């Protein structure tokens, strides 16, 4: 028997916790398939499903060809010819069938195994043209998998084992679609702790390691792997000793979570009796239930992108209104900051954020979409305490324009006799350096504000938070960050408008303590960090933190700043 040696692959810790399970490799960021071994009795039906999918794919291509032949002809039908020939290629289809029978694996798995093998052969040939032809095979595979999925909808719940999703890139949406107790961990080759996929993994309490080089080559679906989201390590072929030590850690973590996660009932006040409002950030509607279970005081940030684009680029108003009614009614008497879609923010495949037209700029360019979402929020507003939050605002003029559209939407709803809550406030995200510097001007046109520290730091320090090589540059202890936070607080305080800090800065106990020291009294954090931050708040005295804040504002070195913060809190945390 071949001896397998344990291998540790290093990446970046993106979501804490540890897990072990069987790898489910994602062939394509949008296509996760479940790979499993078959009972002997299931083999024939898998082969039949495959043949059905091949037939159906062929028919779809022929129909497309007929349509195109009339319209354009020429090259595009040649392309379809190539796809059809692949489907008719015995080397391809018959090899898949053989694999299903010989290895007793499901059709999806066999398709990926055979195509990966061919694609690897293509990559070995140094021919640019041929490398481009990979796309033909990939398209055919995608079509086959899509047709298969229509007979076997994807669900991790049916798995007999715990699984870990491994892919080059995994979209946040995919994690949400797949969430199941059987999905226990995530590994990606791209991305990092500040990517949206990581945010979602944390909110789902899924340990994740990202930015792991070369984890996919050679990794077989079904292989047992360990994800260590505390250390940022993935272990392949773990030895029995390693596995045992992780078994213990998984159990310990589960116990600590049970203990720590419910400091419920305890009020959110500091040792010197200052009340801090601690809200939750949620990324999809069902997460409101987790927020409520933690007895959070409000939903400081409901990121609506994931729910918004769930069914495609143009959601219906009725469906959105249903989503928001769900969140508002489940939140009960807590207010919910529903942030209008920050659409430019959806990362492209390489994880680069597009800044040209995102947030409010995007909404003002896509007014139909903006109005649809506003109407949906108003329709749902009768179910609870909705507040509208505008994303990525950078000029007071944009804000005025958004307010004008909002007023118009309200007027039309009234004219049509649609009942809604007239008192829904409107707030702005302060997350660009421009907005931070002019937040007093913004305050005059807004009912409340949210300080989004993730983007603010990124744009202030001119670093890309998805760029792993330069992650250390994204530094919350940079003196410029402290000064901007201080400045924002100084500008906003006299306006009397409430401000909630809802970035990751609030979710780290140390930087959250800095925020309290600078004078902020409202924080909102992802559900996974809620208990930790509440514990920090209950263990500190704001008077001491103020002193610390004054001290670090005068420091030049980020290392000294960080040391001072850690020393101040060490005794409490």
């Amino acid at each position, binding site marked *: 028997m071949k001896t397998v040696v344990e291998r540790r692959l290093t990446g970046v810790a993106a979501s804490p916790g540890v897990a072990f399970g069987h790898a489910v490799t994602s062939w394509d960021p949008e296509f996760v398939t479940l790979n499993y071994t078959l009972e002997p009795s299931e083999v024939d039906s898998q082969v039949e499903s495959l043949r059905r999918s091949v037939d159906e794919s062929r028919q779809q291509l022929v129909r497309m060809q007929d349509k195109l032949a009339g319209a354009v002809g020429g090259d595009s039908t040649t392309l379809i010819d190539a796809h059809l020939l692949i489907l008719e290629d015995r*080397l391809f289809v018959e090899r898949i069938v053989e694999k299903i029978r010989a290895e007793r694996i499901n059709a999806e798995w066999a398709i990926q195994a055979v195509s990966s093998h061919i694609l690897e052969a293509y990559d070995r040939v140094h021919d640019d043209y041929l490398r481009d032809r990979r796309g*033909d095979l990939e398209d055919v595979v995608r079509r086959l998998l899509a047709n298969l999925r229509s007979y076997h909808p994807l669900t991790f719940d049916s798995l007999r084992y715990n699984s870990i999703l491994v892919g080059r890139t995994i979209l946040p949406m995919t994690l949400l679609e797949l969430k199941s107790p059987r999905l226990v961990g995530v590994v990606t080759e791209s991305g990092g702790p500040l990517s949206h996929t990581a945010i979602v993994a944390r909110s789902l309490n899924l340990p994740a390691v990202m930015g792991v080089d070369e984890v996919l080559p050679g990794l077989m679906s079904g292989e047992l792997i360990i994800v260590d989201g505390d250390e940022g390590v993935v272990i392949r072929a773990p030895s029995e000793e390693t596995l045992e030590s992780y078994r213990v850690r998984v159990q310990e973590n589960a116990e600590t979570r049970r203990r720590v996660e419910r400091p419920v009932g305890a009020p959110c006040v500091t040792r010197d009796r200052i009340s801090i409002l601690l809200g939750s950030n949620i990324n999809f509607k069902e997460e409101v239930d987790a927020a409520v279970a933690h007895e959070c005081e409000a939903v400081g940030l409901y990121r609506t992108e994931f729910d918004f684009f769930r069914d495609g680029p143009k959601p219906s108003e009725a469906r959105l209104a249903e989503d928001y009614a769900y969140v508002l009614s489940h939140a009960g008497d807590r207010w919910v900051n529903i942030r209008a879609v920050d659409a430019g923010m959806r990362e492209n495949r390489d994880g680069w954020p597009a800044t040209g037209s995102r947030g409010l700029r995007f909404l003002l360019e896509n007014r139909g979409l903006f109005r649809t979402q506003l109407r949906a929020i108003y329709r749902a507003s009768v179910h609870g305490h909705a507040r509208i939050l505008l994303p990525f605002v950078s000029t007071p003029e944009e804000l005025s324009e958004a307010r004008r559209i909002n007023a118009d939407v309200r007027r039309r709803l009234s004219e049509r006799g649609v009942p809604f809550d007239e008192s829904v406030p409107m707030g702005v995200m302060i997350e660009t350096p421009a907005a931070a510097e002019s937040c007093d001007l913004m305050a005059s046109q807004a009912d409340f504000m949210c300080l989004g520290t993730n983007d603010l730091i990124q744009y202030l320090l001119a670093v890309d938070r998805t760029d792993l090589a330069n992650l250390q540059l994204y530094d919350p202890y940079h003196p410029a960050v402290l000064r901007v936070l201080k400045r924002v607080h100084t500008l906003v305080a006299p306006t009397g408008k409430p401000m909630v800090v809802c970035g990751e800065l609030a979710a780290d106990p140390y930087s959250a303590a800095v925020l309290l020291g600078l004078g902020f009294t409202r924080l909102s954090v992802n559900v996974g960090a809620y208990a930790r931050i509440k514990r920090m708040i209950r263990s500190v005295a704001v008077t001491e933190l103020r002193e610390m804040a004054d001290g670090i504002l005068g420091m030049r070195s980020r290392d000294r700043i960080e040391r001072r913060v850690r020393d101040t809190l060490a005794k409490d945390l």
Partner: protein
Amino acid sequence: MTDREVVIGHKLGLHARASARLVQLAGGFQSRICISRADRSDGTEADARSILSVLLLAAAQGTRVRVAADGRDEQAAVEAVCHYLGGGEGA
């Protein structure tokens, strides 16, 4: 078995369109037809009826390949395939 060597005459070599035609042409014969590169001894052999394996030859214009057929119509098959690969309008 019948075999013969031929130099690829198509301007783009055995790329998608030419390969697709070749596969269709080969499908018209009963014999099993194999194509390998005469300039390499790596044993890469393509089944002329499989587009995926033909593409893998990455045979550009000017590449010398060996065409071998085995079956009842092997002579006609080699003749037709070589004619096509050599740049004739055999398909």
